[in-house]
C-alpha cells in the first residue's frame, strides 16, 4: 500500500492581521517595522499523519480546530508554514466544487465549468455532463438556470460532477450528511467504489457515527493539534471519553439554574444552554411516570440559552436506559435524525414523539441532553433524572416487544 497523503510536522500560521487592516496604511508600517507584530495565529501545529491508497480518514474536531485548514493544505491550494506535505497533484475536493456555481447559468454550464476547474479536459467535461446529471437525478432540469435549483439539487449536481473524476485523493467536507438518505447512500457507494480502486479519502465530519461506520482511520484535531490519529473506532472512542471529561470539568454547581436536579450528581454540562421542564407525556396527554407496553410516549423539554453568545445549533439527544443493568434500549439525537435545532429555537418546546414504545415491563430512565454541535461536551445533560416504569402483562423477556403474532400453517 503506497502512501498517498503524508503530513510531516506541518504547521500553518495565518497572517496575524485582520481583513480590514489589509490596506497600504497598515501594510507599509508593517513592512518597515518588525517589532509591533501581533502574535501569529497557529491554525495547525506540528500535524503529522499519513494515509495509504484506499484508506478513508475521518477528520473530527470542533469548529476552529483546523479541519478546513488541513483540507486546504491537503488539496495543495495553500502551503504549509512549516513542515512537509506529500500530496498527489491529482486531488479532487468537493468542498469547493459547488462554490463555483454561477446561479445565472444553467446546470449544464456549471457542471462543465466545475469539471474543467477540477482538471477534466474540456471536451470530456462536455461529453460527461449527462452522466453527472444522471447521477444527480436532475436530467430534466440540466438546462434550467441554477437559481431555480433547490439546495439539495445543487449539492447533488456538485457530487454528480465529482463522480466524473478519478482522483488519487478525494477530499470531502460533510457532504454526505446532506441530501436524502437514498442519495447519501449512492454517494457512499461511489466513495466505496473509488476506494476499492485505490483512491484515498479524507472527510471532515461532525458525525462521529458516520466516521465509525465509514472510515478506517480518524484524525482528531483540537485547536490545531493532533489529539489522536489511528483506527477510526479507537480515535472516536477517545474523543467521546474526552467529551465526557470536558463536560465534567465544565459542570459548575453554582451556575445551576434548577433546584430539582443536582449538578455533578445527575446533571452535567457547561449550562450555556439548559434543558428545562422535562416531562414524559402519556397516552392521555398528561405527565406520567408509568406507561403500558405499546403506549405512546412524548418526551417534552424546553431549551433555554443562558450564554449571551455562541452555543448555536446544538444537538439534542434522548436515551432510554434500563434501570437494573444500564442497557441502552434506545438512543437517538437530532443529529442522527437530520433534525436541525437552530438558535431560533431558544425558549421553544422540543418534543420527541414515540407513537408506540414497545418496551417490555420494567424500570427505565429517560436521559436527555443538549450538546455542543461537535459533541465536544454537553451543555446540559440530565442523567437518570426521569424514571419511567413500563407495566403490562407480557411475560416475554428481552428488551422490547414488537407487535407480533404466531401463525401455524
Amino acid at each position, binding site marked *: 500500500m503506497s502512501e498517498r497523503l503524508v503530513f510531516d510536522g506541518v504547521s500553518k500560521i495565518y*497572517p496575524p492581521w485582520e481583513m480590514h487592516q489589509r490596506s497600504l496604511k497598515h501594510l507599509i508600517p508593517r513592512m518597515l517595522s518588525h517589532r509591533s507584530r501581533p502574535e501569529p495565529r497557529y491554525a495547525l501545529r506540528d500535524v503529522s499523519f499519513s494515509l495509504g491508497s484506499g484508506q478513508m480518514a475521518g477528520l473530527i474536531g470542533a469548529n476552529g480546530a483546523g479541519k478546513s485548514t488541513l483540507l486546504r493544505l491537503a488539496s495543495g491550494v495553500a*502551503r504549509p508554514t512549516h513542515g512537509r506535505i506529500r500530496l498527489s497533484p491529482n486531488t*479532487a475536493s468537493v468542498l*469547493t466544487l459547488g462554490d463555483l456555481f454561477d446561479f445565472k447559468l444553467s446546470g449544464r454550464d456549471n457542471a462543465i465549468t466545475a469539471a474543467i476547474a477540477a482538471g477534466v479536459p474540456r471536451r470530456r467535461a462536455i461529453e460527461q455532463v449527462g452522466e453527472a446529471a444522471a447521477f444527480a437525478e436532475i436530467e430534466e432540469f440540466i438546462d434550467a438556470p441554477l437559481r431555480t435549483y433547490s439546495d439539495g439539487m445543487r449539492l447533488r449536481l456538485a457530487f454528480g460532477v465529482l463522480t466524473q473524476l478519478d482522483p488519487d485523493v478525494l477530499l470531502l467536507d460533510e457532504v454526505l450528511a446532506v441530501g436524502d438518505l437514498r442519495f447519501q447512500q449512492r454517494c457512499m457507494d461511489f466513495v466505496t467504489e473509488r476506494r476499492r480502486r485505490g483512491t484515498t479519502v479524507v472527510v471532515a465530519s461532525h458525525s462521529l457515527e458516520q466516521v465509525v461506520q465509514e472510515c478506517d482511520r480518524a484524525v482528531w484535531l483540537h485547536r490545531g493539534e493532533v489529539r489522536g490519529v489511528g483506527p477510526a473506532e479507537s480515535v472516536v472512542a477517545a474523543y467521546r471519553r474526552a467529551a465526557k471529561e470536558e463536560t465534567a470539568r465544565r459542570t459548575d454547581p453554582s451556575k445551576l439554574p434548577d433546584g430539582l436536579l443536582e449538578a455533578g450528581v445527575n446533571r452535567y454540562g457547561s449550562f450555556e444552554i439548559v434543558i428545562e421542564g422535562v416531562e414524559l407525556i402519556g397516552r392521555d396527554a398528561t405527565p406520567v411516570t408509568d406507561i403500558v407496553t405499546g403506549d405512546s410516549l412524548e418526551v417534552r423539554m424546553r431549551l433555554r440559552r443562558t450564554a449571551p453568545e455562541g452555543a448555536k445549533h446544538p444537538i439534542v439527544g434522548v436515551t432510554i436506559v434500563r434501570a437494573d443493568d444500564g442497557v441502552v434500549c434506545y438512543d437517538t439525537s437530532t443529529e442522527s435524525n437530520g433534525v436541525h435545532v437552530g438558535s431560533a429555537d431558544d425558549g421553544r418546546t422540543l418534543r420527541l414523539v414515540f407513537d408506540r414504545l414497545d418496551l417490555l415491563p420494567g424500570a427505565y430512565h429517560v436521559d436527555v441532553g443538549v450538546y455542543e454541535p461537535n459533541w465536544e461536551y454537553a451543555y446540559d445533560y440530565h442523567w437518570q433524572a426521569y424514571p419511567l416504569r413500563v407495566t403490562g402483562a407480557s411475560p416475554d423477556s428481552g428488551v422490547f416487544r414488537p407487535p407480533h403474532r404466531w401463525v401455524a400453517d
Partner: protein
Amino acid sequence: MALPPREFAGLVLHLARRELAATHEGTFIGWAWPVFRQLAQLGVLVFVFGSVLDLGIENFAVFVFTGLIAWTWFASGVTAATSSVIANRHLVFQPRLPTIVLPLVAIAVPFVDVLFALPIVIGMLVVTGELSWQIATWPAIMLLQFVLMAGIAWITASTSVYARDIPGLVSVVLTMLFYLTPVFYGLRAVPDEYEWVLNLNPLTTLVTAYRAVMVGEPGPSMSLVGALTLVSIAVAYAGWRIFRRLERGLVDHL
C-alpha cells in the same frame, strides 16, 4: 500546475465564455451591449471634440474610434483583471485550476468588444476611403497590447490581494491615463516640449501605431516601437514572476 499551452488557452477561453454568458444573461439586447457601449462613448467624444470644441481633425469619428477601441480594451481589461483574483475566490480554491489564468480571462472578456467593433471600424474606413492593406498588421499591434496588458494584469491582480488599495489606485491611474493617451486628440496637436511626457505612456505608442495602420496617420518611430516591444515583454515577464511568487500565499489572504 504545468498545463500544456493548448489546455491553458482552452481554459482561458472557457472561463471567458462563461463570464460573458453570465453577463449577458437576462439582458434584452444581450450581445449588442458591447457595441452599444462603445458607440455611445464614441458619440459623445465626437460631439464634444468634433463639434463643441472642434479639434479640426479630418474624419474625426473614425480617428477617435481607432484609439477608443484600444483604450477601452486596455482600461476595462486592466480594471477587471485587478480584481480578478479577489472576485474569483472560489476558482482560486480549486486545486487543479491554475490561478494565473484569471487575469488573462479578465483581459479576454473585453477583447470581445474589440472583435465586435472591428467590422464597424472597417465599415467606416470603407466609407471614408481610408482602408488600406496596412490594416493586416493590426493583429500584431493587438498582440503587443495583449502582452503588455497581461503583465500589468498579473501584477495588479496578485498585489491587490495583499493590499486592497491597489484597485482604487488602478482606477485613479486609468482616469489620468485616459487624458494622457491621444485617444480624442492626435500627437500632432501636442507641443513638442511635452511630447516626451506622452511618449512615456506605452499606450501612446500603441494608439499611434493603430492609427498609422488604419487611418494612415504618421506612425511612431521605430525606436519607440522597439522600446514598446521591450517594455511589454519585460512587464509581462515581471508580471509572470511576481504572480508566481505571490501565488503561494493567495488563499491565505482571500
